């Protein structure tokens, strides 16, 4: 198998040959997962029902429409720019002879590990109206007045920088998993390079890019850290404001339901555009011959360097600066390892359970389809689009009232992470499954394997890149999760994220610097392991 065979084929399935109804092995766990995901929506229904008429009037208020428009525009803009940044990077780092491609492929994914509340503070410190860039240019005698920076532009830049790696990771996985024989076949049949790209590569990549882009859009809908730092009024800030200012849980619930509806719309849009219909028949594709960049490698390098500078070096630099300033003032940096251990432990558990919960849903939707599958996968996205505080309060409500013995346990916290981050696992798994032909599973079945054996010995190994990518994404986002951790963790269970928050909100940036650096270091390490593993697979 190690020898590359040119004889791999692709099978195009416009219409599925036949769709078997899902077996209990897939259906039952999927239904359980769906039940989990319904909890926040049910909670919001209960709370919204308690709303008086005045609240419904607020909902149709012009202001609500304005916030809705702002939020949608921001989500669209961030998604578009994330894709625009991620696609060239994905292609450059997987398909070309870009010098230092391996290094760039790690560096350009790194911004993913920066929490958006930290990123917001940093972007304001650097690019704000009186930020470092402004002072630098001032000294050079260049008049630079980024007056309109706060609001939309600031939120756009900040969120693009922390979310584009979702598309990048997804698109890279797609490009790596794609058999170059397809493009070559198109070329031998007379297609030019661009035409082959458009006819073969684009449709092949679409589900991967779509999955990543959807995560970006929903991340923007649910984000609080960046928009609040950038003084941008979005749906999430409006929801937080209700909790904070008037202790009014009813209006917040009504607003959250609008957000759920919006998320469902995003999911529907993505779904309508269709999934990939390419299956690879043989297990191992050849690695493609890298495209020669020639003189183009200079602009390519410049792009990689610029993205790395903005997404990685600037945050690192600012945090290190805080650390030095604080130490010079004689601040004691009490760096304990306990929060780091808590973060790692909870994130590992979250990655495991989330992938396990997402797998049956992914199989249901990729292999069997139908309305039920669409409904369940739609539900998963509702959990991701909800701001952390809303999700956390819904679980507070159910757990404290009905299952008090799990309330504020690590188990419930991991449960919350699972509900919140399921779509991050679902995307890569589904896209991975789309590349594996069901005929291999069917063959194993005819050879006498049980459904569970097939899942374990055929399906999971074949979608392994998807499984690893899913687990890694969930792990990295859990490391930086804040609102649910604050409300649902066992009392006294502090994580790196809560330590950073607790210092930074009170203006102790120097004290926030040490846990922030530790968070970035640990997350980067895990990311590096993931990418190293990706390469190992390619060689093996």
């Amino acid at each position, binding site marked *: 198998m190690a020898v590359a065979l040119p004889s791999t084929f692709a099978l195009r399935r416009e219409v599925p040959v036949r769709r078997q109804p899902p077996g209990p092995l897939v259906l039952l766990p999927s239904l359980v997962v769906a039940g989990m995901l319904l909890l926040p929506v049910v909670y919001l229904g209960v709370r919204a029902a308690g709303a008086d008429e005045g609240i419904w009037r607020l909902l149709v208020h012009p202001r609500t429409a304005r916030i809705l428009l702002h939020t949608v525009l921001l989500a669209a803009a961030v998604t578009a720019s994330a894709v625009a940044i991620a696609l060239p990077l994905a292609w450059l780092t997987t398909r070309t002879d870009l010098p230092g491609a391996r290094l760039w492929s790690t560096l350009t994914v790194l911004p993913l590990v920066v929490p958006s509340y930290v990123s917001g503070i940093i972007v304001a410190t650097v690019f704000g109206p009186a930020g470092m860039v402004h002072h630098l240019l001032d000294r050079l005698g260049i008049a630079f007045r980024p007056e309109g920076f706060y609001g939309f532009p600031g939120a756009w830049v900040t969120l693009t920088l922390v979310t584009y790696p979702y598309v990048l990771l997804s698109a890279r996985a797609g490009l790596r998993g794609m058999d170059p024989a397809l493009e070559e076949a198109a070329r031998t049949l007379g297609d030019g390079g661009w035409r082959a790209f458009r006819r073969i590569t684009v449709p092949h990549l679409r589900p991967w890019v779509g999955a990543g882009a959807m995560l970006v859009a929903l991340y923007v809908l649910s984000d609080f850290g960046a928009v609040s730092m950038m003084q941008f009024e979005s749906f999430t800030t409006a929801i937080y404001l209700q909790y904070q200012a008037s202790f009014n849980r009813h209006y917040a619930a009504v607003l959250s339901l609008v957000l759920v509806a919006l998320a469902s719309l995003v999911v529907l849009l993505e779904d309508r555009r269709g999934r990939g219909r390419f299956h690879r028949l043989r297990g191992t594709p050849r690695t493609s011959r890298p495209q020669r960049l020639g003189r183009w490698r200079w602009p390519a390098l410049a792009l990689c360097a610029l993205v790395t500078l903005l997404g990685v070096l600037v945050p690192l630099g600012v945090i290190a600066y805080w650390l030095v300033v604080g130490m010079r003032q004689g601040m004691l940096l009490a760096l304990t390892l306990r929060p780091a251990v808590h973060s790692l432990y909870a994130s590992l558990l979250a990655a495991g359970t989330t992938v396990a919960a997402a797998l049956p849903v992914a199989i249901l939707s990729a292999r069997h389809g139908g309305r039920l599958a669409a409904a369940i996968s739609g539900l998963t996205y509702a959990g991701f689009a909800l701001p952390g505080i809303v999700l956390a309060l819904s679980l507070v409500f159910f757990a404290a009232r009905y299952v008090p013995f799990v309330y504020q346990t690590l188990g419930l916290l991991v449960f919350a992470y699972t509900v919140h981050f399921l779509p991050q696992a679902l995307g890569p798994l589904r896209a991975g499954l789309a590349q594996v032909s069901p005929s291999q599973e069917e063959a194993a079945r005819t050879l006498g394997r049980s459904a569970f054996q097939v899942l374990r010995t055929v399906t999971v190994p074949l979608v392994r890149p998807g499984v690893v990518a899913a687990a890694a994404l969930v792990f990295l986002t859990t490391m930086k999760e804040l609102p649910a951790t604050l*409300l649902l963790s066992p009392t006294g269970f502090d994580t790196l994220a809560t330590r950073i928050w607790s210092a930074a909100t009170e203006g102790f940036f120097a004290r926030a610097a040490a846990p922030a650096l530790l968070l970035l270091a640990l997350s980067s390490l895990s990311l590096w392991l993931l990418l190293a593993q990706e390469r190992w697979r390619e060689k093996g």
Partner: protein
Amino acid sequence: MTGSCLPKVPKPVVLLVVVLPLLLAVLAPLGAQPVTVTVYSGRNQELVGPLLERFAEARGVRLRVRYGETAELAATIMEEGTNSPADVYFAQDAGALGALAYAGRLQRLPAALLQKVEPRFRSGEGMWVGVSGRARVVAYNTRRLSSRDLPASIRDFTDARWRGRMGWAPTNGSFQAHVTAMRLLWGNERTREWLLGMKANAPRAYRNNTAIVAALGAGEIDVGFVNHYYLFRFLQERGEGFPVRNYYFPGPDAGNLINVAGVGILDTARSSAAALRLVEYLLSSEAQRYFAAETFEYPLVAGVPAHPLLRPLAQLSTPRVDLNHLQALEETLRLMRETGVL
């Protein structure tokens, strides 16, 4: 062809690593535990963590503290209903305490404790008590302005000469409490005029007090409406050269509001006696001295002086506002929305 792709991990190891900790985590709280006091603290761990630890050590009470945002913890307590594990709620502002008292979630405190604090800094019904004071001030950039340039009343900031030079935090709880206080002092109409006048001067909207003080230091704005103590943290981290100072209005101006951070005992508290000991401790001179020295807040118990950098509480002329009414935020929010401030 498939098995070789996965590294072999023995099943027992998987079980041990994944399943066991989860089970333990769920079952652990079922085990026997000594009597503990659970605190929901809307006050920051960096600020009050050492104080609470000192209490636990000195009085031999086991403390479990959940840190979070003041309002979110209040919402959490309401969602928890009668199963709330919280015994004590430690809030950053009187409004949140008022909201919990209004929802019937707080217990009446003993009179002996309440009387340690002036009536203006505690609940009229005795449901909560303030433990430290926080003054609203105008912070200004000392490179752009001296205190002589600043007006006699917060109302004067509607003057056109302040256009584009101010920062505030309309989404922040302490600012909203301040607007509520204005409504109580001036009535809705004059508050509306003030908000509209301010808005005409296009103040920058920041997320919170910290962001305002940081922006003042960077020279992004010249004046900002904040709580008094944030400045001192910046001075601590950045040194005396940090170009920002606080300004108090002369006379009992609405701008000189003093809000409190305070505590209440939950109606569902399982160990009220131990919870009371914590409240007692927070009003002890040891704790009051801690607030003065470490958080730069005003001690509220007689006999403990404020930090030497602060103007003493007795010398501040504060407006007469009943803190019990600060939870009436709904009306304030409506006003802020109608004027386009929010």
